[in-house]
């Protein structure tokens, strides 16, 4: 058993399938997806794409945080605050300063939703919004809300961002730098990302179909999720309820192309291999893989090949939950960390919705129905532009 284990004692989430952990679990168990035409953003592409959108407006989200009407919170910050607050409450933390407590948050879009409204149109009204553009802004707002004055950090490695935030938090606990840390990520939908992915021609006009031979691309989503990680010492001292452990983690770079994954999934293979090594387990100990599975042609093929490089023909049960939530970019690693823990807690594998036909080159069939079975280890993948590949392994004990 590795020393200095990293316990997970709280979780918070807001996504298109629910605004609480319970609501997300309910949707996952009942195959209720959150993919629909876009409502809150007035984009020219609204009839061509489907997204995983949090239905509350900014005004509604701000109200639930008791913010004044003239606030300067981006959608990313609003979502982040809601999820992080839930996580802290779930972990029963009321005195934040009782231990050395940090916050590591991930985002890729930051405050772009505000910037695209005031860009090149400076006035008294927009002045307060200028600095909400920066990636650090949502982290500062979450830290202020939670009362964290100690270590704070922000990570941005595109779609693997939150996995790297969780990883850094775990390493800081293991090395004794922090006693506990709130880790996760947040990204709101913005015209910027919708148009960006549109130009790459990887947006699906229908519900996305991860790992399907006829997949047409991804659905974008927005979400935020945070975990509370605590050291053995804190867990013991406060007699904490443990939801699961972060047993392993791995980070590697594909070093192949700015946006495309290599054909043999080198970065993904290296990240998974490293994570298994850190967890000190064999590949066959993994009971379920929560795949990155964006439903783009490139990702699913490359990820599938990487998984086969490790497992050969004995690939464990796997599914992508992105057909529920859409691809929530920098938040995805944290969303899927919450789902991995829920899987472990409930001994259940969430289905890979919309799957019909296996990809011929892979011949891999994901789990397509809610499946009950004892789970001890769940592996979760997150890969991003820039070749950034990360893997997390969660364990029950």
């Amino acid at each position, binding site marked *: 058993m590795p020393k200095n284990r990293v316990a997970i004692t709280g979780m918070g989430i807001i996504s298109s399938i629910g605004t609480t952990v319970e609501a997300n679990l309910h949707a996952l168990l009942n195959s209720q997806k959150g993919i629909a035409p876009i409502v809150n953003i007035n984009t020219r592409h609204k009839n061509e794409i489907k997204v995983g959108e949090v239905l509350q407006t900014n005004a509604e989200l701000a109200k639930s945080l008791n913010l004044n009407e003239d606030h300067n919170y981006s959608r990313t910050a609003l979502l982040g605050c809601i999820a992080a607050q839930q996580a802290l409450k779930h972990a029963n933390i009321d005195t934040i300063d009782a231990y050395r407590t940090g916050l590591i948050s991930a985002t890729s879009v930051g405050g772009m939703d505000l910037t695209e409204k005031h860009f090149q149109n400076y006035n008294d009204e927009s002045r307060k919004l200028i600095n909400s553009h920066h990636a650090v802004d949502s982290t500062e707002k979450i830290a202020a809300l939670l009362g964290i004055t100690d270590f704070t950090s*922000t990570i941005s490695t595109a779609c693997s961002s939150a996995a790297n935030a969780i990883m850094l938090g775990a390493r800081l606990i293991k090395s004794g730098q922090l006693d506990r840390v709130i880790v996760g990520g947040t990204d709101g939908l913005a015209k910027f990302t919708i148009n960006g992915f549109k130009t790459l021609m990887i947006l699906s006009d229908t519900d996305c179909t991860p790992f399907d031979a006829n997949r047409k691309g991804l659905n974008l989503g927005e979400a935020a999720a945070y975990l509370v990680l605590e050291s053995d010492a804190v867990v013991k001292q406060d007699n904490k309820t443990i939801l699961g452990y972060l047993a392993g983690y791995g980070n590697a770079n594909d070093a192949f192309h700015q946006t495309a994954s290599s054909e043999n999934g080198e970065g993904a293979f290296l990240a998974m291999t490293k994570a298994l090594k850190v967890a000190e387990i064999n590949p066959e100990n993994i009971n379920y893989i929560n795949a990155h599975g964006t439903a783009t042609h490139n990702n699913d093929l490359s990820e599938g090949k990487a998984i086969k490089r490790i497992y050969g023909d004995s690939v464990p049960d796997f599914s992508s939950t992105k057909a529920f939530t859409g691809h929530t970019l920098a938040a995805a690693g944290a969303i899927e960390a919450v789902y991995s823990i829920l899987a472990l807690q409930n001994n259940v594998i969430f289905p890979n919705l919309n799957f019909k036909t296996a990809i011929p080159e892979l011949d891999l069939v994901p789990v397509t129905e809610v499946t009950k079975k004892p789970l001890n280890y769940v592996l979760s993948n997150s890969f991003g532009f820039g070749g950034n590949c990360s893997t997390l392994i969660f364990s029950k004990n």
Partner: protein
Amino acid sequence: MKPCYINSAVSISAQDTLDNSSFLENTISFEGQLAKAIHPNYKLFISPIASRRMATSVKMGIAAAKKALELAELETPDAIITGTGIGCIEDSEKFLNAILDNDEEFLTPTSFIQSTHNTVGAQIALTLKCKGYNVTHVHGAASFESTLLDGQLLLHENEAKTVLVGGTDELGKYLINDIILAETAEKQPITTPFGEGAHFFSLSQSKQNNSFSAIKGLEIFNKVTPETIKTKVEDFLKDHDLTTEDIDAIVLGKNGDAFDELYQTLQDSSFKSTPQLHYKHLCGEFFTASAFGFWTAANIIKHQYIPKVLKLNTIKKSSYKNILLYNQLKGQQHSFTLLTSC
């Protein structure tokens, strides 16, 4: 954590810092609000075909990273950790303008692809074919210090023997104007120009022949007040078995705004008899400007000499062993970095 060793320090900034033959001898002073970087001949580092599509930050980053590896005589590091506050703002602005000007039509992907914050780190990895640990930290004024912390942790955990860390930020063309306008409306605004630059450093777990300084301690924190800053810094030094008297120079991220009070408090108390230095009048204020401060501190230890242009007082020391850096922006993203000779 164990100390980690610095084997090279490279700066591309508004000063002529890439040329290692002098250390801030003939510096430029700035009249306007912008301190643009002095660019090297990028052909020495990047193929002209690749370079043509690259934004300022990517070019500066790759050049500084390559130079840092060359000076450290290292082919490929075990990890690449990059920091940026504003990210790839040039490409973000290009894509944003295209969306707004053409009402979401006729867009091309290049600027979107290059707009993500991790573009610089990714392009360095791609250039070096480095498949190791790769992360981009975007924590405002502590982005660079986050790379140091992450790198130090990797070396401490024995996950890497060598790490390339650095910070890059580019001015961009549009948002910076609004940032300056918003800043000017402040009661006591930033008085240094706004700048840009790329700073890269090669770190190693063990001391090498070319190691000239070591990171002894590092702390990143979110909040402190003028009332608590003195205790905070003294506690930090105590954690590393040092007192304020052991500090041979303090390098401060002063930029002239109201939050300089935090620096002034230390200047007037704990470090009254310590050589006090500033640097943002030379490189400008930007999120990873503190990496320029780090570069100066490492060079002071290397050369055992403080260029006059950095000095805030006339106090001298016979040798420069321990140098403390303190940086913050608008009372947020504070960092203490402690460098020592080795």
